[in-house]
């Protein structure tokens, strides 16, 4: 018998029962909750007169609707306010732990989970949010669910699931100097397409993945959903353990020893068989920029928008106001957004600050903003003086939240505006109706802010 993949191990250790009709009942260790996809789940529980299965499995935080400035004034938009108030009320009445808007540890749900040690290796983790795949970076089985399933987990601590197939994406070799996890995952999505991972759980392995920091691994797993796979996974190693150790809710003392011994087993067996394996030479990757309205429409910064003869890209190009054959470096920008659950962690802000340091945002840029992923990320950055670097350069330095990644709060693009964004989706209207999004790494977004157009930030003298 062949060995097990990491996904197999996590699945098997949470399998409550196999149902007669070919589905499985899977136990969920942790549910993360935010204000957008939970109100109807709580309402459903009340209507059915059901109680919470295990209160302490749930942790909530408002993030999507949260203003990123003038917080003391509260939430201006009545609809946003009602949604955040509803989360507060639901958490209060069900006694669920919540990091409220005023809590210094509030932040984007996928940033604060790992940061607080509330998401741990070996867990099954769900959230009514597709970017729950982020937590797979810690060797956890984490995936996004709909609101009906949020209610299912609140009421039963389980989900009826069908097992996915196993895919391994092996990133061989080393990333070139200055190439980031964001470039790596955009490259993968460009290669396998936005439906390439549909039906699979994707494990990322190989030397280039092992060399990534936890922040980088979270960026990779975060965007696994953009390749169609609900779950991304990375094996536990010393980097993982070092990251988790000391986090507020991580086990301590003897419990730590016991947990970490178990976590070390969370990797695919040598003889594990994957349904699909893709090998990529990490050394081939350059800074990546999306040019269309799907994350798979991506090329490297030194490239150009590809030519097609069948008109396949025309709707996307019309929306983006771009033409085939345009050099990426000739694309001028209006706004810069550094933030989101993909790229708002301390390492992301350090990378961007390094590029910005001592320079000024181009006069042609209407707005350049940095939105840290959480209160602790913001505090850490301020302690390191990164806020000052950004502010001196002309960036705005905001309060934590999802912000312009999906523009549910006041931060958005106006119609026709073009943005270099460190977020995860360049869909039509995502950052504001008619807004045009180019997905890039924090360093690339920072360099674009300085120059007013895209440049290859890994090239010596890019600023000249």
């Amino acid at each position, binding site marked *: 018998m062949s060995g097990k993949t990491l996904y197999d191990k996590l699945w098997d*250790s949470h399998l409550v029962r196999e149902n007669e*009709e070919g589905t499985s009942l899977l136990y969920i260790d942790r549910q993360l909750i935010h204000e957008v*996809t939970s109100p109807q789940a709580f*309402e459903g529980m009340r209507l059915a007169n059901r109680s919470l299965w295990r209160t302490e499995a749930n942790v909530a935080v408002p993030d999507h609707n949260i203003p990123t400035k003038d917080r003391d004034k509260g939430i201006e938009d009545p609809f946003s306010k009602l*949604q955040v108030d509803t989360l507060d009320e639901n958490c209060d009445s069900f006694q669920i732990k919540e990091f409220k808007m005023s809590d210094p540890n509030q932040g984007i749900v996928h940033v604060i989970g790992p940061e607080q040690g509330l998401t741990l290796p070996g867990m099954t983790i769900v959230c009514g949010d597709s970017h729950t795949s982020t937590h797979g970076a810690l060797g956890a089985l984490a995936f996004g669910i709909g609101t009906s399933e949020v209610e299912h987990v609140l009421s039963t601590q*389980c989900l009826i699931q069908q097992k996915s197939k196993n895919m391994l994406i092996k990133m061989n070799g080393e990333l070139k100097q200055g190439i980031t996890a964001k470039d790596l995952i955009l490259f993968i999505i460009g290669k396998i397409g936005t439906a390439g991972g549909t039906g699979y759980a994707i494990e990322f392995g190989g030397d280039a993945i092992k060399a990534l920091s936890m922040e980088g691994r979270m960026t990779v797993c975060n965007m696994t959903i953009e390749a169609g796979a609900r779950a991304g996974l990375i094996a536990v190693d010393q980097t993982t353990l070092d990251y988790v150790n000391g986090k507020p*809710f991580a086990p301590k003392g003897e419990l730590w020893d016991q947990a970490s011994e178990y976590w070390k087993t969370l990797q695919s067996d040598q003889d594990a068989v994957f349904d699909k394996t893709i090998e990529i030479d990490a050394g081939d990757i350059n800074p990546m920029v999306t040019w269309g309205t*799907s994350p798979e429409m991506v090329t490297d910064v030194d490239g150009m928008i590809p030519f097609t003869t069948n008109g396949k890209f025309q709707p996307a190009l019309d929306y983006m106001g771009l033409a085939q054959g345009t050099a990426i470096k000739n694309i001028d920008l209006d706004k810069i957004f550094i933030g989101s659950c993909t790229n708002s962690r301390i390492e992301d802000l350090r990378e961007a600050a390094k590029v910005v340091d001592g320079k000024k945002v181009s006069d042609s840029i209407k707005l350049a903003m940095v939105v840290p992923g959480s209160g602790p990320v913001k505090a850490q950055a301020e302690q390191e003086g990164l806020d000052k670097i950004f502010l001196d350069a002309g960036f705005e330095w905001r309060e934590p939240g999802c912000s312009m990644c999906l523009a549910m709060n006041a931060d958005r693009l106006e119609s026709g505006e073009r943005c270099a964004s460190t977020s995860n989706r360049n869909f039509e209207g995502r950052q504001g109706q008619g807004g045009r999004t180019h997905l890039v790494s924090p360093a690339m977004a920072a360099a674009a802010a300085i120059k007013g157009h895209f440049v290859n930030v890994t090239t010596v003298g890019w600023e000249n």
Partner: protein
Amino acid sequence: MEKFQTFTGIVAPLDRANIDTDAIIPKQFLKSIHRTGFGPNLFDEWRYLDHGEPGQDCTNRPLNQNFVLNQDRYKNSSVLLTRENFGCGSSREHAPWALADYGFKAIISESFADIFYNNCFKNGILPITLSTEKIQHLIEKTESNIGFSLKVDLENQTLTDSFGNMTFFEIESFRKDALLNGLEEIGLTLSHAEEIKIFETSHLQKHPWLFRT
């Protein structure tokens, strides 16, 4: 959930791949705390010429006449015909809520994104997967025959057009049963409550660090 019944409905072709859930229901409408009322904002940015906001009366908004659902021939359609990777992106269940609220009961595509596909079954919508050739054929037929409709029979897994042409489709048996019987999944899972408790106790013993907050 209501049981899925055989029905005959007008087919609307949305000839585009990778339609994401942001396009199906834009984010500003996700601010609702209810499950209903999303129909008027389905495909909002494609359907209307102005910018939509939650709570707005949509009856007098300027329509984009080029958008398929605004054309008279596709009024009252209940079958959506589209291209691969439909429903990609965000996990928002507001997408199937909006489709159902508008009146769609079945969506036919070459493929669906996982989370969206799953969400459809929780809301009585049947997602049907057909080959690229069959989708192409159906799109051509829909465009060349005003009022083109399909009879959707889940029990027998068939689609039949008004000319009597029949196509079979595949679906997993548990999903088929769930729709046909209108199964209430939470109740079903709670019927295994004892097993869940036994598992939970042993799981906690093996992993005692898990349940701290």
